[in-house]
């Protein structure tokens, strides 16, 4: 099986490549990258006016299977990923039952193999049943195939357990992904605490609920030398703390999401009680948004992730307090980054793509992925960075997105996973 991609602008940030190059794929691997490849009787994609990049790696998604198949399944979630140019997804362990033992990991891997359209990498729980009390069998989880551990959504409140997790997982080189939230401060809160929460009479979540845990986790990373990855950071101070940690050469990395970079709490002032603006961490303020985007420019942010969190219409169309947190994001991850980071804030495509391809693969030690390189897996996205479209429908089972109806720039044309075309736009 051969596939030839011609006439596209190939971007490979790790090698500073951004030029017109052709690409030949054979048996799921990249076998040739040169100026001009001319072959007859080979399936050929004309990538004229398009960027050819390694497929995106989304390190934070919720595929909801097992347990909440009404929201999303491994099949539907990976289809949505393919539609967004994503060829690998990390799925968080807050399923039912949670992914906290070898059998659950194997279930996800098997399902992904038989029904998944793109690569699925499970994230295992740090503690049993995500209760924050007893460590899972992290070695067994690793053997079964997890690429990281996290109690995402149920932050580990005990500093001792967090310390042990960071310490113990070191020997497996497994990063601990931390959702930073001091629940004693955030409890009952449904949006950012501040002007808009006072206006709407909604309970607030102060920024400090996140920042206190960011600094605690950094201190514990320093104590243990463990691999700490801070996910979906949303405030200016969180970014400052990560910057300091990096200056001290600590083993700390982080990601941000498009919604925290491109939306503020003011949207809730404009669209009062619209639950598509309800997520955790909540949308913050202008100064935070600016800090997040600057941190992308300055490479304090390592990755950009979607935090794809599908919920049904019935669950979301409710009283604001009762609706669940979260929005979908697989299908908009790339296009939002192109629209805002590239077109609006003039951040080079190669810098954006590093955080969506090279860095995730490196931080989570994915072999043969995240780069366009000889003998690497042929996970590729081809997109037109200038094509405009209005966001309307979703491939995901859910449609809880605040970006519906927005005019976006940057359209995925082809997604190729392990040498196979899995999406054609």
């Amino acid at each position, binding site marked *: 099986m051969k596939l030839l991609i011609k006439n596209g602008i190939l971007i490979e940030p790790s090698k500073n490549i951004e030029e017109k190059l052709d690409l030949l794929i054979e048996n799921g691997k990249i076998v040739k990258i040169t100026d001009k490849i001319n072959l007859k009787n080979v399936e050929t994609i004309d990538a004229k006016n398009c960027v050819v990049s390694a497929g995106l790696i989304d390190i934070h998604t919720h595929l909801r299977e097992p347990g909440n198949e009404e929201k999303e399944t491994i099949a539907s979630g990976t289809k949505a990923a393919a539609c967004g140019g994503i060829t690998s997804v990390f799925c968080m362990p807050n399923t039912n039952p949670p992914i906290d033992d070898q059998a659950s990991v194997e279930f996800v891997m098997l399902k992904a193999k038989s029904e998944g359209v793109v690569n699925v990498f499970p994230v295992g729980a740090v503690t049993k049943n995500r209760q924050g009390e007893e460590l899972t069998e992290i070695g067994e989880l690793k053997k079964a195939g997890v690429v990281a551990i996290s109690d995402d959504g149920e932050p580990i409140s005990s500093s001792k357990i967090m310390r042990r997790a960071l310490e113990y997982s070191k020997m497996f080189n497994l990063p601990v992904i931390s959702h930073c939230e001091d629940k004693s401060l955030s409890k009952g809160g449904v949006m950012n*605490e*501040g*002007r808009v*929460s*006072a*206006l*709407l*009479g*909604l*309970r*607030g979540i*102060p920024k400090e609920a996140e920042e206190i845990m960011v600094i605690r986790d950094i201190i514990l990373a320093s104590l243990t030398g463990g691999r700490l990855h801070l996910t979906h950071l949303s405030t200016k101070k969180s970014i400052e703390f990560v910057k300091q940690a990096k200056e001290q050469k600590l083993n700390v990395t982080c990601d941000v999401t498009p919604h925290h970079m491109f939306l503020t709490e003011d949207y809730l002032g404009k669209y*009062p*009680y619209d639950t598509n603006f309800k997520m955790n961490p909540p949308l913050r303020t202008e100064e935070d948004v600016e800090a997040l985007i600057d941190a992308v420019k300055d490479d304090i942010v390592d990755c950009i992730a979607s935090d794809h969190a599908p919920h049904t219409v*019935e669950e979301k*169309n*409710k*009283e*604001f*307090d*009762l609706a669940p947190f979260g929005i979908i994001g697989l299908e908009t991850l790339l296009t939002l980054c192109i629209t805002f980071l590239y077109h609006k804030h003039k951040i080079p495509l190669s810098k954006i793509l590093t955080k969506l391809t090279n860095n995730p693969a490196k931080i989570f030690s994915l072999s043969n992925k995240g780069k366009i390189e000889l003998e690497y897996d042929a996970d590729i996205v081809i997109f037109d960075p200038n094509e405009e479209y209005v966001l309307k429908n979703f491939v995901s089972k859910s449609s809880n997105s605040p970006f519906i109806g927005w005019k976006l720039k940057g359209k995925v044309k082809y997604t190729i996973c392990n040498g196979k075309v899995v999406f054609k736009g």
Partner: protein
Amino acid sequence: MLTKTNKVFRHKHLLELQSLSKEEIELILETAKPFKNVFMRSIKKLPTLRGKSVVLLFYEPSTRTRTSFELAAKRLSADTVNIAVQVSSVQKGESLIDTAKTLESMKADFIVIRHSYSGAPHLLAKNVSSSIINAGDGFHEHPTQGLLDIFTIKEKKGKIEGLKVIIVGDILHSRVARSNLWGLTKLGAKVVLCGPPTLIPQDIDKIYPQIDIEYNLDKAIKNADVINILRVQFERQLEHLFPSVREYSLLYGMNKERLKNAKRDVLILHPGPMNRGIEITTDVADSLNSVINEQVTNGIAVRMAVLYLLSLANLNK
């Protein structure tokens, strides 16, 4: 008598005072005046809303607001229905939207809703075609309470502009405070919020730039024209917002001794129900300064005005 004014009220719903203009608030207050005269008579009924139905959907206990709306509707000849949430399909797990859609299908012209979650009336307004009146939602707004408070103040003081109004107590969890704030500041009053820092929301002075915050009640009430005392909710103590009801009462309870520092003609308001002896002593509640009973009477007039103006607005559409 009622249609002398050329001004039109253009809203389909009454969800909040935030989105009303100064003129619209004044129109409601003006319209309420003649309605008050009507029910001061022995035959208290007008045919204005004959054939219209008003459904009272109260998810929280209420005596005065529910009765007030019901009487207001009946005095305009509308049919009223009370939904007792405790014995309704809500107990079978029916969602708010489905309950409201059921009422809509029965052709309810108005749904008056009281709900413990902020934004519940907005959710109905988005999902059903009936006209929605907010009778208090969570910590957000209680627009008719705000209107009746302002109506009462204006009746007694002759104006709102330039008055110094103190709102005392749990501002953070008070929908009454928010509606008062919008209404009063739009009409030009000077508002001072008074309570412990734990009960005053962060950044509230960014929403209403012309307000003041004063933690000390004795300082706050000096030169005040009006003191609006909020009900203290005992469960807030469990959230560590203040250490004890006793200390709250010592710091923020309104008593005769304290009142000596205020102007002699200061008005005392309270939205009810009162915790006598805690946020207000009986001698203050029953004093000549108190207009608490008049607030209740005026509540009906204001709600009649709201029902009337909304029905006109819907007619014009």
